[in-house]
């Protein structure tokens, strides 16, 4: 069990708020579309903080006009991967940014065991740290 205030992985921009409703997700997507950002949906069962490349649930939706389309995809991802972490990422292609501009989790496993800290004592008082996800001791797809 995780012991941080929300007892869950707090990656993403809204992890300290109650789970987002579909209406809330839709208005966040509308905000992104208004700024001409593209919406991508990604999922993983390896939530290590340095795991950059979650699996893509299709390419980012570059030509999407209606937020309802993205919500449909999100719900389809939730149905396919009910026990995975799923995040929505907005991509801004503007010069000087060309990078994600939003990222929030819209699905997570019911139980989040979290991470252990592995300490390798090395020279002097120094320690080499490894953050180890308990869930990844099992094979991909069998973790949550």
């Amino acid at each position: 069990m995780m012991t941080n205030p929300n007892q869950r992985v707090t990656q993403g921009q809204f992890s300290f708020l109650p789970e987002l409703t579909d209406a809330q997700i839709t208005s966040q997507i509308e905000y992104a579309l208004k700024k001409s950002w593209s919406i991508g949906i990604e999922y993983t069962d390896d939530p290590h903080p340095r795991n950059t490349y979650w699996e893509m649930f299709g390419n980012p939706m570059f030509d999407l006009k209606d937020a309802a389309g993205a919500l449909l995809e999100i719900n389809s991802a939730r149905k396919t991967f009910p026990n995975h972490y799923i995040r929505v990422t907005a991509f801004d292609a503007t010069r000087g940014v060309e990078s994600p501009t939003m990222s929030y989790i819209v699905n997570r496993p019911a139980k989040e065991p979290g991470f252990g800290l592995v300490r390798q004592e090395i020279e002097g008082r120094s320690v080499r740290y490894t953050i180890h996800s308990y869930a990844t001791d099992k094979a991909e797809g069998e973790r949550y």
Partner: protein
Amino acid sequence: MSNDAMTSDDRQITDGKKRYAAGVLKYKQMGYWQPDYVPKDTDLIAMFRITPQEGVPADECAAAVAGESSTATWTVVWTDRLTACELYRAKAYRVDPVPNTGAGTRTEAQYFAYIAYDLDLFEGGSIANLTASIIGIVFGFKAVKALRLEDLRIPVAYLKTFQGPATGIVVERERLDKFGRPLLGATTKPKLGLSGRNYGRVVYEGLKGGLDFMKDDENINSQPFMHWRDRFLYCMEAVNKASAATGEVKGHYLNVTAGTMEEMYERAEFAKQLGSAIIMIDLVIGYTAIQSMAKWARKNDMILHLHRAGNSTYSRQKNHGMNFRVICKWMRMAGVDHIHAGTVVGKLEGDPLMIKGFYDTLRETHTPQSLETGLFFEQDWASLNKVMPVASGGIHAGQMHQLLTYLGDDVVLQFGGGTIGHPQGIQAGATANRVALEAMVMARNEGRDIWNEGPQILRDAGRWCTPLRQALDVWGDVSFNYESTDTADYAPTATASV
């Protein structure tokens, strides 16, 4: 207009024999005042606020500043004639009276003087060389009562000789995996006296509670109560433990400021060896040291935080010194990734429009001229990375709607007292800030009017988040409403005239 406060009749002497006869000439006569000069795209342009001595016309003052910040000395020297002196001479080409100064006001007459410098006057990639000219000796010059460097237009050709921010906003966010909201930090308090072990406790609690960064303060280096290696070791234990507890990337700005470069490199290397994502330096280490650390940071995948310790000694008073926007420009060139640039609402100096000018200077790829925010020149930033501004000093969760409105998303909001002083402890303080922030970002994105509805949005979140409710109960009414000393000289409606 002649022989009044603005101008004198002295003209540039063009006859070579007379111009270079031994003796003393007015700076105008020497050729440092050229009202017809049209600056080249490759010129660096400086804009100074001049308060002339009694009886010295403004254009002669401007010529003197141009002269003493480029080739002139107090008397004529024939050796000028061995050089392309017309090129190397800085040219004062424009003087404007500063609005609301002079006769009939409470402030003695001041003038904005524009001076153009040829690119070849400066060594590429050296803030030290640039500043040795522009702010080298002129500020003590007797003919001006006071002098302030207000702004600089830096040519793209010169910017391209600088590395710029080691990491920049975009890559920093990618490394931290944090998008779509301001970052949250806190400075460890009390800033002096904690042992390494106790210090790391504060870091751990703040990060686990929900902050992205904790921070050393500017004067925490290696004192008898806590030597630097102890601090680094305990802080990195705290950072990694908090990262495991939350699944997020966390950081602590390890201040590597020290007495010598060798010592700073040693501390930076140790921070890297321990796996820190970020190190910190103070502005007081000097421009060259900052540039060296920026090069080191780029080479070692390190984010470089700069604390602006010392800047108010020369940037706060309006008539003398230099405007902080100039420091912002130099620091973007020098290559830092973070710089403290004001909060508007906190305990430290900061007029909203002036702060906007600083933030734009740090974060935009191109800034148009904007007199109301104090940007006197259009500036193309030539693909130099963006610097993340840091808002720190007397801010709390109850101001979240104001902070987000004034400062936007690309900023680190640092709540020191506003985290550590929480009645239920440091974790609760951190959680209150994170919830307030996320609730406000969500509401803004939904199109709500957070400026007016902000307090209600926070109270609503406080209904399900006890730490936030407690924070609002303690600090909700605290504000610092003092008049700013450094304000715009032009009303928002003024039209550009450059």
